[in-house]
């Protein structure tokens, strides 16, 4: 608790005790009034002071002023306990609000405490402590176990493991050793590391994340704008209704005191505080809670848009697949022999497929075994391995040799192997689908994403295979980079809630930008992706997607609940007060109660689940 909060609490307690004493004393008349004035002034002084200043400036629609009118009015009407209760419970609500706001601020600040306060740098022959902002590229840094890495750099000495949790949400520590890159914001766990700085502090991941989360508050959602304009009208409207209730009915039915009391009850609920605080608080908590899971959202508006998304479009290579080409299938009588032949024949080729073949074979190649090597561009290779002639290449290359190429239904790029007399088999090279792609897609469906599509520059067969294995609704293949934006627009025109594009951010920045919500995966290290995307998944992990959607929807639901609940209760109380059913006690409890419940509800976004 801060000093101000403690003072407020003290005031509330003293006032509450005096209030109970005053209520128990067998006093009457002026003495009873005086007994209640003491607790009233103790807790109500700040309200009275602000009300006085507002009055001086002629601002009669100020909540403090209205609160003061309500409580003083209650005193004048002889309802002393009610008068005290108005300011006492108003103060309780205020204390609770400031405590809750402070708590969630701290909780987000704590998780954002990615930057160390000091760094140890090697300068002029000795290790000195300095501010992380003073680190220059090329400096040698020493990072002790338990310390945070201040800037991006490379390990020159030492072996340790790093905790990346506050950065990516990944809970398994990463083992690192000399030559490995280290990210700012990660925590050194086991032993001393010497690191050479490769980036300045402002360019480091930690500094970027920090400024992003702070900036996020400036991008307001529609709900926040609604609440702001609502509260602009709310107080004057309540004031007007109060005046109407106080002046109009008694003209016809008389009984002025009773109607004025009812009007004063209106003023008790005149502060739109619960609403105005709970909505930004919810978004703040939502964005903070998301970044704790390695999901960076660039604004409340983006979180709101994500909550409404009903269509998701994925990039294929690097997003649904690993983006690394591997030998996935070898079909033939002797698979090992087939790979051995292909790898040797492709020994001198620089084609990526040749590299995949060599890696797939995995054993050292013996150059002397090869002779009469000949490459026919666009077709393949002929060469002798251990004296026997082989042909390695595409389908057309087989036909050229007079062979009928065997049929295959496997998706990917096919490499055919044959000798002089017959085809020997097929090696299939393809991109591997990420292990959790299918499960992430199905949990996205469970979270309410109705349509999921894929865009790729690759051919139909490869696209269809990935599409089926992952469980998507459809795909667009053979797209040039420029076509992707057009295709996304086409998809967007069929979606009601909005379209989200998920890519690795490397060369799909324009697509990321044209989507309602652009999501970049594996954001760490790729500045272009962080710039272009609305949401950045720090880890290259598809399972963060359903989590992000879930968080966005949960946040949005809480915001709606709070808006409907706060406005609903206030309107209900005003109706009941006007009818004379509710007393000022009800109004006071309803007002503070709504604040407390709305704030507690908002704070659910900070929960660790």
């Amino acid at each position: 608790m801060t000093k101000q909060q403690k003072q407020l609490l003290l005031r509330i307690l003293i006032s509450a005790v005096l209030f109970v004493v005053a209520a128990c004393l067998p006093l009457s008349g002026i003495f009873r009034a005086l007994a209640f004035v003491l607790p009233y002034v103790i807790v109500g002084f700040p309200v009275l002071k602000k009300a006085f200043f507002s009055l001086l400036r002629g601002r009669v629609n100020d909540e403090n002023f209205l609160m003061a009118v309500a409580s003083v009015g209650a005193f004048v009407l002889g309802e002393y306990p009610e008068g005290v209760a108005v300011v006492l419970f108003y103060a309780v609500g205020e204390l609770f609000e400031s405590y809750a706001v402070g708590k969630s601020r701290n909780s987000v600040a704590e998780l954002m405490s990615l930057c160390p306060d000091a760094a140890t740098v090697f300068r002029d022959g000795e290790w000195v402590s300095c501010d992380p902002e003073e680190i220059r590229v090329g400096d040698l840094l020493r990072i002790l176990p338990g310390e945070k890495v201040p800037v991006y750099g490379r390990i020159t000495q030492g072996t340790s493991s790093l905790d990346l949790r506050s950065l990516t949400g990944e809970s398994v520590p990463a083992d690192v050793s000399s030559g490995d890159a280290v990210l700012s914001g990660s925590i050194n766990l086991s032993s001393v590391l010497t690191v050479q700085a490769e980036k300045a502090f402002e360019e480091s991941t930690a500094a970027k994340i920090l400024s992003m989360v702070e900036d996020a508050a400036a991008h307001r959602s529609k709900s926040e704008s609604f609440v702001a304009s609502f509260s602009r009208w709310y107080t004057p409207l309540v004031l007007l209704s109060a005046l109407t209730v106080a002046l109009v009915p008694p003209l016809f039915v008389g009984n002025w005191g009773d109607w004025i009391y009812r009007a004063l009850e209106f003023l008790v609920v005149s502060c739109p505080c619960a609403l105005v605080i709970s909505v930004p608080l919810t978004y703040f908590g939502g964005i903070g809670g998301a970044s704790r899971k390695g999901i960076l959202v660039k604004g409340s508006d983006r979180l709101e848009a994500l909550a409404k998304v009903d269509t998701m479009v994925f990039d294929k290579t690097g997003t649904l697949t690993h983006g690394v080409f591997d030998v996935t299938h070898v079909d033939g009588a002797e698979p090992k022999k087939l790979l051995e032949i292909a790898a040797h024949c492709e020994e001198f080729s620089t084609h990526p497929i040749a590299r995949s073949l060599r890696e797939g074979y995995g054993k050292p190649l013996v150059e002397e075994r090869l002779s009469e090597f000949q490459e026919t561009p666009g077709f393949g290779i002929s060469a002798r391995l251990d004296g026997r002639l082989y042909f390695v290449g595409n389908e057309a290359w087989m036909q050229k040799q007079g062979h009928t190429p065997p049929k295959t239904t496997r998706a990917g790029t096919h490499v055919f192997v044959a000798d002089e007399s017959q085809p020997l088999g097929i090696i299939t090279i393809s991109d591997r689908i990420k292990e959790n792609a299918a499960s992430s897609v199905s949990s996205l469906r469970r979270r309410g994403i109705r349509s999921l599509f894929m865009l790729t520059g690759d051919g139909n067969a490869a696209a269809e295979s990935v599409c089926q294995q992952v469980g998507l609704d459809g795909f667009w293949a053979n797209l040039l980079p420029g076509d992707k934006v057009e295709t996304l627009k086409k998809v967007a025109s069929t979606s009601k809630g909005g379209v989200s594009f998920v890519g690795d951010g490397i060369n799909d920045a324009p697509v990321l930008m044209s989507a309602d919500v652009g999501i970049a995966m594996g954001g760490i290290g790729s500045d272009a992706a962080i710039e272009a995307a609305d949401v950045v998944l720090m880890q290259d992990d598809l399972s963060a997607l359903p989590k992000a959607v879930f968080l966005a929807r949960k946040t949005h639901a809480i915001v709606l609940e709070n808006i409907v609940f706060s406005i609903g209760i206030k309107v209900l109380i005003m109706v009941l007060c006007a009818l004379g059913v509710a007393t000022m006690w009800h109004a006071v409890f309803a007002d503070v109660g709504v604040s407390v419940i709305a704030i507690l509800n908002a704070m659910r976004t900070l929960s660790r689940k």
Partner: protein
Amino acid sequence: MKKSYRIQNLCCANCARKIEDKIKKIDGVIDAKVLFMVQKLSLEVEDGALESVLAEAKRIAKSIEPDCEILS
């Protein structure tokens, strides 16, 4: 130009909203946001107007919330 300032003792969200509304109306202000949760004022003003805008903003903040202070 854009600039942002820390705000101290801004303790009521509705006041933050009111301060923002008023600052937006100052001459020379293109856009202004009072961010209650991060206790910041972010200002976008026309070139050369910053000093006068800031002085006026400080006065407005004080008049709505007497304890509150824009740090610069």
